């Protein structure tokens, strides 16, 4: 069984941490743009939490499907929406940071997922036909 999810999560986390580093660097270089970089940092942190929660949920659903068990009820999307809303409330209402920068931070991890997912699909399509049978070229 080929399990790509931990590898994908590690890549997404690495990309998000890189953007967090860029945000910290921008804040250090341009302190007068504190509202923009601060909002971006909080949004990106929230998006990282969202992605980790989604990966945990996906693995749990797959475990239940493979074990033939019924899924227990949960809050599902509401918990992830609450994480996003919490990041927005902390950033915009409590700290007074820029709302647009917060939204840009929240879409950091989904954009990384999109880019990595599309690149992995393209890589799979470009593979040799004998790959599916496990033969060595």
């Amino acid at each position: 069984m080929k399990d790509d999810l931990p590898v994908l999560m590690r890549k997404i986390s690495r990309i998000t941490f890189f953007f967090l580093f860029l945000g910290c660097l921008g804040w250090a270089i341009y302190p007068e743009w504190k509202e923009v970089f601060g909002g971006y940092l909080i949004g990106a942190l929230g998006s990282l939490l969202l992605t980790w929660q989604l990966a945990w949920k996906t693995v749990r659903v797959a475990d239940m499907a493979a074990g033939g068990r019924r899924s227990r009820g949960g809050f599902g999307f509401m918990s992830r929406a609450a994480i996003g809303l919490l990041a927005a409330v902390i950033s915009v209402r409590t700290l007074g940071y820029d709302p647009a920068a917060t939204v840009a931070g929240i879409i950091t991890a989904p954009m990384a997922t999109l880019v990595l997912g599309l690149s992995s699909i393209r890589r799979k399509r470009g593979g040799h036909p004998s790959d599916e049978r496990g033969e060595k070229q």
Partner: protein
Amino acid sequence: MVYGLLAAAIVFGLGAFGASIGNGMIFSKTIEGISRQPELRGSLQTTAFIGVGLVEALPIISLVLAFILMGQAE
């Protein structure tokens, strides 16, 4: 003020409506596929994760936009 609240409700409601349909389709097909072929679980759960991550990005952005619209309406 009423229009701002109405705009926030429409933005989040429509975003969540589309995402709920998309999530339901993705997870139902994933569970069906894993039940039929448990050996493909790894690749199926990765594909489901990518799909759900993309589908859920929009309603979360719409939620934050709705929140901002509500803040402007007050």
